[in-house]
């Protein structure tokens, strides 16, 4: 019994050794891309562009940070993008109808969280594999959003609300502050709290986790609810940054978020990975697109380049991981 418990709790402790090496490689990859872009483009290293990249990476990061926890438990949440779309449309309507951004923000977060909770209930109480449960949820959410919006677009929000996504504070974009805050909270939660360690343990070995007294179902519920709430937060940032919402915004958000988690070194098999890695993953994806825009890479080649970089990043990760073992 004691050995199983030890095994189950072991992965987070190894963060300082093996995961630290993985993170180092990942940072190196990001820096390498930066170095290449700095040589090829004069404007890349300007302060404006660096802030630009951070702000663009933040939206993907918000979605991907919650998703990281889900993937750490060996689950997947395919509904995040659709959740962002529904939450944005509902939050946007509330702001339009009541004129209160605060009420809209609360509604957006609550909508995202409730969807996440429903995902969690399907995975725990109904024991539906997360891939299927959240894939089904993706359709349900799309259906609801398309029906609700009926081909219309919401646009035009109060200037104060717009500050969240577009404003600056002491020269830094506000989403960048939020990025730092959630990067801190996420890392602390995963690495330094009992709940965080239990999540790693569930992903590493769910049977051992249950036997060692971890309330697996309750933790899974929490993880899906957090993922949903982060999608709700992303919807608020989206609304205030773009000044609008429409039904089809989700489609282009899900896969980059999943890619950020995986490029960041979180294993689809669970138990291995960090929120900081996911941040680097989001950064790498953003850097690639930013670089291609700065260098005016032809629209024909952009999907190909993105694809190759994603494959290279994951392949390098697997290679270094094997060597480390």
């Amino acid at each position: 019994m004691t050995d199983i418990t030890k095994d189950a709790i072991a992965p987070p402790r190894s963060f300082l050794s093996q995961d630290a090496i993985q993170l180092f490689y990942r940072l190196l990859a990001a820096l390498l891309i930066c170095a290449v872009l700095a040589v090829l483009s004069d404007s890349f290293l300007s302060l404006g562009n660096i802030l630009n990249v951070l702000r663009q990476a933040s939206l993907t990061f918000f979605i991907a940070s919650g998703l990281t926890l889900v993937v750490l438990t060996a689950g997947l949440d395919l509904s995040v993008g659709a959740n962002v779309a529904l939450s944005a449309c509902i939050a946007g309507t509330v702001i339009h109808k009541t004129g209160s951004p605060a009420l809209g923000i609360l509604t957006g977060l609550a909508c995202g969280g409730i969807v996440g909770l429903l995902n969690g209930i399907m995975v725990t109480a109904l024991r539906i594999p997360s891939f299927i449960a959240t894939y089904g949820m993706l359709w349900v959410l799309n259906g609801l959003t398309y029906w609700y919006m009926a081909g219309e677009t919401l646009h035009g929000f109060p200037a104060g609300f717009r500050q969240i996504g577009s404003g600056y504070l002491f020269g830094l974009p506000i989403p960048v502050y939020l990025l730092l805050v959630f990067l801190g909270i996420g890392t602390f939660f995963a690495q330094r709290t009992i709940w965080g360690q239990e999540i790693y343990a569930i992903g590493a070995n769910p049977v051992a986790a249950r036997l060692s007294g971890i309330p697996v179902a309750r933790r899974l519920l929490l993880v899906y609810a957090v993922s949903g709430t982060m999608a709700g937060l992303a919807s608020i940032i989206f609304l205030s940054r773009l000044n609008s919402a429409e039904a089809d915004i989700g489609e282009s958000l899900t896969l980059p978020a999943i890619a950020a988690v995986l490029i960041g070194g979180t294993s689809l098999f669970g138990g291995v990975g960090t929120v900081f890695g996911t941040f680097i993953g989001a950064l790498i994806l953003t850097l690639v697109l930013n670089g291609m825009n700065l260098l005016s890479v032809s629209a024909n080649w952009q999907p190909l380049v993105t694809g190759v970089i994603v494959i290279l990043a994951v392949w390098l990760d697997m290679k270094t991981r094997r060597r480390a073992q």
Partner: protein
Amino acid sequence: MKRTLSYMAMPLLMAAAFTTQARADGETIAVFTKNQTNPFFQTVRVGADNMAKTLNAKTLQYIPTKPDSIPEQLSQIEDVVVKKPSAIVFTPVDYKAMVPGVEKINEAKIPVVNITDRSAGGKFLSFVGADDYSLGLETARFLLKTLGGKGNIVIIEGVKGSLTNVDRVRGFNDALKEAPGAKLLASQPGNYQRLQALQVMENLMQSNSQIDGVLAANDAMAVGAIEALDGANRKAQVIGINGTKEAIDAIKSGKLLASGDYNGFAQGCLGTMMAIRSLRNQPVISEIVLKPTVITKDNYQPFDVPLEQRTCPTFEDAGKLSAK
């Protein structure tokens, strides 16, 4: 052109042979559109409903739940062939991939009108659509005229390889060739998505200190680009395509220079009209390619009316609306 004329003549002859008021009304018209997300198709659907109501017929709307899904539209065609509506008004989600679907409709001998995107194959009794190339050409010409034929221009493209994008961007580029004073700085993909267009614009502003004009392949991307410009406190003349309500609002407030429109409402109206007329053995126009409208602050009023309150063109108008 000769072929078009002979097609046009055939229904005329048929109409002469029969009396004009041949069959009772109450027909059911199945209307196929590409998705529920693009406001353009909402205008098509409202136009179709409007015309059906005027002519005392019913519509059944078929829309893939997953936008532009080829398998889904194929299975909807299978359903419709079993249900046998009086006629079909059809927009293929993909102009090539849906040809086998159209052939199934043809085999079932259900009369079908092609609207919006021209199908690469199959037999249709009429085509009602617009020309994306001239839409791109005319909007870009308007931008260049406003800029006095010079300036630094950026193109934000839609989904690479989609028919609409290929033609619109070709139109943009041909208009740019007519203005030697204008310089194309970049042509980058925004995939018809607002967020992607915003980010592309933010990135392009980093490497280009002076951008005078933006040509976006749809309105959502145009508005995304405007948000990016506003965020950086920069100004440029921006063009969109589709004539959405959002674009009209932006034109009214002076943020958007213009939006190209090929009148989805009229496409829905006229497609349905042709289908019903053929059922009633009345003459049909075999091809209507609508002229693009460049909506600007001088002519936006007719477009600033809720869809439900718009009126369909008459059969006599249809001939005049055609560019050919």
